[in-house]
């Protein structure tokens, strides 16, 4: 049992619609998957990863879902070098 302490910044996940409940208009590849939401907030009470957890969001709302990530962070970047861009416009030449 490894409970995450209350007030930790976490991300929960909720299945909003199962494949069977999805909108009539979605294409087949999308319909094969559930409609899922993730939200971050402060853990309201100690909980385990993978178990049900309640969070308090940045605007103070209380929401419940499956505890997914502890200290969720952003790791998007400028990406790996794209050599095709490097020579464009060198020396002021278009």
């Amino acid at each position, binding site marked *: 049992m490894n409970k995450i302490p209350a007030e930790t910044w976490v991300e929960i996940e909720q299945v909003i619609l199962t494949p069977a409940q999805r909108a009539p208009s979605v294409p087949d590849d999308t319909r094969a998957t559930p409609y899922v939401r993730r939200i971050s907030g402060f853990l309201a009470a100690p909980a385990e990863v993978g178990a049900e957890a309640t969070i308090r969001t940045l605007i*103070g709302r209380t929401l419940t879902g499956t505890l997914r990530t502890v200290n969720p962070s952003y790791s998007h970047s400028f990406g790996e070098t794209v050599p095709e861009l490097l020579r464009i416009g*060198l020396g002021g030449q278009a």
Partner: protein
Amino acid sequence: MSRDMSYAAVMARKNEIMKASLGIDFSAYEQSPVRFDYEKMMRDTGFTLEELVRIQRETKVGDTPLFELRNLTEAVRKISAPGKGATILLKDEAANASGSFKARRAAISCYEAKRRGFAGVATATSGNYGAAVASQAAQRGLKCIVLQEVYDSRGVGQPEIVEKGRKCEAFGAEVHKLTVGPELFYVMLTTLEETGFFNASLYTPFAIRGIETLGTEIAAQVRARYNRDPDAVIVTHAGGGNLTGTARGLLTAGAAKTRVIACSVDLSGLHMASDRDFNRKSFTTGHTGFGVPFATWPDRTDVPRNAARSMRYMDEYRLVMQGEVFYITELLAKLEGIERGPAGNTSLTAAVAIAREMDRDKIVVVQETEYTGAGKHHNSQLAFARSMGIEVRRGDPRENVPGKNIVIPERLDQVAGHDQPLDKLRVSYLKNAAKILPAASWSPEDKAFLAADVKKDSAWLDSVLPQLKA
């Protein structure tokens, strides 16, 4: 008794939910199944131009610089026929509080929400508008919820959308990160019902009127510096608000002869609600997946009547390929010494092609920029595309196939874009109207409205009626 929260039941309650969350009774403007009083709906927002400007100045919006792109203009002249190559100007909307022109829309929506006593605002958007609402809400002391379509079913997020989500949280918003699907609107309705927040939709009359100041500023700045009106203003087009608001502002300023040219990235062939296609496109907005359906039927949004009616104001529609935009984005950095994000660079790409066809003494204005950085940067977009199996190479941009490859031009003279014939879109719009009320039942007033909604007259409409049966 608890409410039925199934998809069908919530969608059936949409009109009452939207009425409560906007304070606008859209039914008051309806005149027939295919006609409503658009101008009255816009007037009833009650703001004068001076009031819009004052509200926006309070929250760090507007009065952005207009730059002359001297080096890019010279480069275009070198590849143009003698006497051709218009001056290219760039309106630096990245200077607004949240880094894009969307702050103009959000400023008026949040002001209105505060004035009406709402505790918070909610919006459904994966674009810059989310950050704009979050930024404006923070300044007005409102709570903010942003709903974003971020992930495919494997949990892989478009880097640009991930960045926009980060920015919303940075301004203190509660961000809902959703998987691919049109059910975003369903979640928006349930959120509005749960919270009682104001619907800071992109498409309300408040939001669109907020963009009018962009048009009036462009007219004033060009007149002050060049003693004339701009000959063309090029607008990156998706949902239609940017074009509608800017064009209305130009008209308010009296720049009636300025041509308003829409531009989108051509993503034809990719399905916008497809879990597979979602991460096979490098542009999250400003593309044909929004631009064409919104032009041919604006009333497909989270409000009953869309205040963004792009075909009313559009004189021309240019499409560009993804590879062309990436090339111009890089060139903007190397020649002009500024790094900006993809949305404004879409219209800049069209501007290069259009300026080349125009006389040297003419002026074309690219009417927006947006911020760039991790996730939004074109290197980030291209590296992500490559990781998704998209082929990236230099070559002739006409070889671009959306979802399969990105071909970056080798030379500036290969940046040409292509024309999207407007009459074809106008007829599509009429066909959509005929699905609601058969054309045989249209009254003379209906015809006048529908014609005006695509910048034509009733005589033109009568001339294309036979095509509706095709």
